[in-house]
C-alpha cells in the first residue's frame, strides 16, 4: 500500500500513536449480530476502518459427500477480501494469503465448537472483507465466532482475537495500517476468553523473548476487551440484562 506514508515516529512525546491511541488501546469497535436474513447466523463488525461481514450456514449436509466425517462435523472457512477493500486493487479470488488465513482461522474456530454433536455435517463460514485496515484475520475470527453463536451452534466458548505488535521498540496493542506495514513486528492471537487457551498464534517480524511475552499478555488484554463487546452484541439483542 503506497498511499499511506511511513511516519517519522510512531509514538510521539505524549506517548500517543499515529491515530491518537495509547499503546494499550484497541481501535473503536462496533459489533452487530444477525444482520443477514438468509444465513443461519451472521455478524457485521467494524474495528477502526476494518469492515467485515461474516455469514454462517449449518450444520448442513456436506457436498461433496466424501468430505464428510462420520464422527464429527467439519468446518469450512472462507476468508475473502473484496478487490476494493485495500487501497491498491486486489486481484479477486483466493490467493496464497487468503488460503493460509482460511486454514489457520478454520482451525482456530474448530477448537471452540462441539463438532461431535453433528456428525456427517458441515458448518460453512464465509468472511467477506469489505474494507481492510490491518488485523483483518483477527477481526474476522472475532466476528465469525459471534456469527456461529448466532446460528445456534454449540461452542465451548466464543473466540476473541486481537493482534499486538512492535513499533519504535514499544509493544502496542491492535496495530493499525501504517504500524502493520512499517512496524517491526505483528503478532495476531486468538483465545477462548474463559480459559485463555490460545487457538491461533502467528507472528510476523522479530521480537525478543521478553517482548514476545509482553506482546502475548497485551494481546490477551485486547481479546478480553473484544470479548466484552461480543457479549454485549449478543445479549442486547433480546432485551439485555
Amino acid at each position, binding site marked *: 500500500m503506497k498511499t499511506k506514508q511511513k511516519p517519522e515516529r510512531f509514538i510521539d512525546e505524549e506517548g500517543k500513536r499515529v491515530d491518537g491511541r495509547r499503546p494499550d488501546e484497541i481501535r473503536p469497535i462496533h459489533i452487530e449480530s444477525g444482520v443477514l436474513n438468509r444465513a443461519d447466523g451472521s455478524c457485521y463488525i467494524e474495528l477502526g476502518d476494518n469492515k467485515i461481514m461474516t455469514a454462517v450456514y*449449518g*450444520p448442513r449436509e456436506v457436498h461433496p459427500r466424501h468430505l464428510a466425517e462420520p464422527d464429527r462435523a467439519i468446518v469450512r472457512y472462507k476468508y475473502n477480501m473484496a478487490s476494493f477493500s485495500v487501497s491498491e486493487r486486489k486481484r479477486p479470488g483466493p490467493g496464497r494469503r487468503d488460503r493460509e488465513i482460511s486454514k489457520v482461522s478454520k482451525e482456530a474456530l474448530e477448537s471452540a465448537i462441539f463438532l461431535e454433536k453433528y456428525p456427517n455435517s458441515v458448518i460453512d463460514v464465509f468472511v467477506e472483507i469489505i474494507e481492510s485496515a490491518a488485523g483483518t484475520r483477527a477481526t474476522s475470527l472475532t466476528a465469525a465466532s459471534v456469527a456461529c453463536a448466532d446460528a*445456534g451452534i454449540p461452542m*465451548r466458548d466464543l473466540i476473541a482475537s486481537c493482534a499486538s505488535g512492535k513499533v519504535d521498540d514499544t509493544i502496542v496493542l491492535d496495530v493499525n495500517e501504517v504500524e502493520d506495514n512499517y512496524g517491526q513486528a505483528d503478532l495476531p492471537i486468538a483465545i*477462548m476468553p474463559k480459559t485463555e487457551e490460545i487457538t491461533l498464534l502467528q507472528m510476523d517480524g522479530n521480537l525478543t523473548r521478553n517482548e514476545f511475552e509482553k506482546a502475548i499478555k497485551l494481546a490477551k488484554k485486547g481479546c478480553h476487551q473484544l470479548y466484552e463487546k461480543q457479549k454485549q452484541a*449478543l445479549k442486547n439483542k433480546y432485551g439485555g440484562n
Partner: protein
Amino acid sequence: MVHRETVIPGEKIGKNLKPGKNTYKEDNNIYSSIYGFKNKRNDTIEVLPIKSKYIPKKGDKVIGIVTDISFNNWFLNINSPYDARLPVSLHPEYIESGDLKQHLKIGDAAIIEIVEVDKELQADANMDGKELKKITKGTITQITPTKVPRVIGKNASMISMLKRETDCQIYVGQNGRIWIDGEKQNIEKVTKAIQMIEQEAHKSGLTNKIKTYLKNQK
C-alpha cells in the same frame, strides 16, 4: 412467561447443579454451550436455544419433502442436516417395485414419523399411521424448530386459537415445518401470525397479542 436471561456460549450459569440441555460441566461449574435463554428447573439448569437446526428424534412427527428416490426408499429432507429414509414397506399402500414415483415424487411433501435414528443421525421414517399422510394441498411455511412449542402453546392454546380464528387446518411438525390448509386469505393470515410468533417468541402474553392481531385483520 417470566423474563429470561440471555446467555452466550462459554458463560458460567451455575454451580453444583445438574447440567441440563445445551450445557456442559467443568469442575462443578456449569457453562452454557449455546446462545439462548437460561432456564432453571428445580436443581437442573438448562439453556433454551434461540435458533437451532432440527435433529431427528425417535417418535417425532415431521413434515418432509422428497429429495431423492432409490430402488426401494424415498429420501426426505426434514429441514435438518440429515435426511430421513422412508422404505416402501412403511408406506400405507401396497407398492409394486419400481412404482415409487406413482406415490411420492421428488418435491412432494408428507407428514412422517421418525421411527429410528442411528449413531450417525441417519433417520428412518414411517408413513403408516394416524395423521401420517402425503400432503396434496395447502401451503407449508417454516420456522426455527426451537419455536415449535411456542406455536403450539400451553395445552395447545395457541394452535387451537389459530385454528378457531381462521378456520384453517394447521399441522405443526416437530422440525419447524407447518402445513396450513384453508381459504387463501386465511392461509396468508396464519402465515403472518406464525411469522410474528417466531419473531416475538421470547416475549410473554403472545397468545392474546396474536388473537387481537387476527381480529383486526378481519
